[in-house]
């Protein structure tokens, strides 16, 4: 990914908030901490698989959002849903989604968190960052599984 984007997205790389490496590291740390916390609390009970999965996913989203910080609109939206008392609810401008100027755009709005309150311009920008972050999430997760299992073997 770095190779591919080296020529074109230099602007993004310089920004520490959107630099994929930083985000990966921050996300990894937070995610591991969250999972650790989950483990320590849930060791006794055999929680249902799906609930575990959901909590892990929630932890992933939350740690991702907090790793990104409140700089981006979608992370703000995510954090707002997690802990509503932390961030003041901004006055959400409700864009007319139902009017449906562009059905694809509405689809994208549904996908990207917090996409409802954004105009098309901001939506595209958020999508770019969101894709970056999703990529940052995926890669180290497999790595984690590998490394933890490797650690547990030895």
């Amino acid at each position, binding site marked *: 990914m770095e190779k591919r984007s080296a020529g074109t997205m230099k602007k993004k790389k310089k920004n520490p908030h959107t630099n994929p490496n930083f985000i990966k590291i921050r996300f990894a740390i937070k995610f591991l901490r969250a999972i650790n916390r989950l483990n320590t609390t849930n060791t006794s009970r055999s929680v249902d698989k799906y609930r575990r999965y959901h909590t892990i996913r929630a932890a992933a989203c939350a740690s991702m959002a907090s790793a990104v910080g409140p700089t981006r609109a979608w992370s703000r939206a995510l954090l707002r849903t997690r802990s509503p008392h932390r961030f003041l609810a901004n006055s959400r401008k409700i864009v007319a989604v139902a009017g449906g100027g562009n059905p694809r755009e509405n689809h994208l709005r549904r996908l990207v968190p917090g996409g409802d309150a954004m105009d098309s311009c901001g939506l*595209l920008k958020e999508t770019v960052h969101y894709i970056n972050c999703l990529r940052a999430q995926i890669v180290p997760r497999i790595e984690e599984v590998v490394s933890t299992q490797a650690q547990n073997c030895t």
Partner: protein
Amino acid sequence: MEPQLEATQPQFRSVLSGPDAGELGFGFDEIHGLISNPPEAPSSSFTALLELPPPQAVELLVNEDFPAKPMPPPIFPSNIALIDRASKFSVFASADNSSEKTPILSASSPMKLDSVKREPPDSDSRPNSSSPPVSTQGLKSGKRKQEEKKVKVTNKKSKKAAAAANDSSEESGDKLPFVHVRARRGQATDRHSLAERARREKINARMKLLQELVPGCNKISGTAMVLDEIINHVQALQRQVEILSMRLAAVNPRIDFNIDDILAAESGSSIDNSYMGMFAPSMWPELQLEGNRQHQYPQPWQFAGLHHPSLAKEEADTPNFITPENSLISYDSPANSASLHSSQLKMEL
């Protein structure tokens, strides 16, 4: 209007005193003469002036206070300097004139300039012939006429100017922090369309970025398809995240995280390899090695084995993602047994 005229009057003087007044053939008396000369007998130049609608003239007059741009040095004879000045005033009157055009104007078409040269001598000759008293109305009308005439001429010429200048100025306009969008030739220049155009270009720039981000979008043309691809990609990424978290959930209970060790490992080799180097290829050999080594955990590593070819490609192959998902779901019960198995092994260890 009077104070405004008072303000414009000295400016007019300063404007003229920049380049040599002698070349222009204007003295202050002549200015006043020109200014106050009522349009008694319509000559060719003045009829051209009168064609311009009054609001534009007023605008011109009002905008004369703006002279933020430095006067160009009169390389050519001074008439051209006057034309340049007039065209600069016209920038504010109609948005499709740009100061960038006027150098082109002055540099490229001597033939047209000759025709323009003819007109100022006409106006020059007029004040010389009369010496009337100064009147504010005359000031306004006279200046307006002169500027209008120049504006009209330069309007015609700037429209004929190269469209390439338009495009280049448009490009450079977008990079300024203040959004200066120059209108292209033949496009409407009112506020709404300008703002819309700026917005559209912003959106197009972002779409281009997205296209570069999503693999395989470069070849597709058309906004709709690209958006479709983007949506597919986002969905695929989200599904991947889900799958990974399911995996983690399946594997999770037996994991005793030792954060310090893991962080040390992170700062060490493993994560560096995956971050710095290539995205997929460097990692997959590691995984495969791990999978081969650990025969105690067959089933999770079968997942990994399944995932390798699909994830290594990284083109948004949604069908590939669907099948591992199905396999994952079908492996649910074995996953349970795998976790039990692994917990047994942990206890053994």
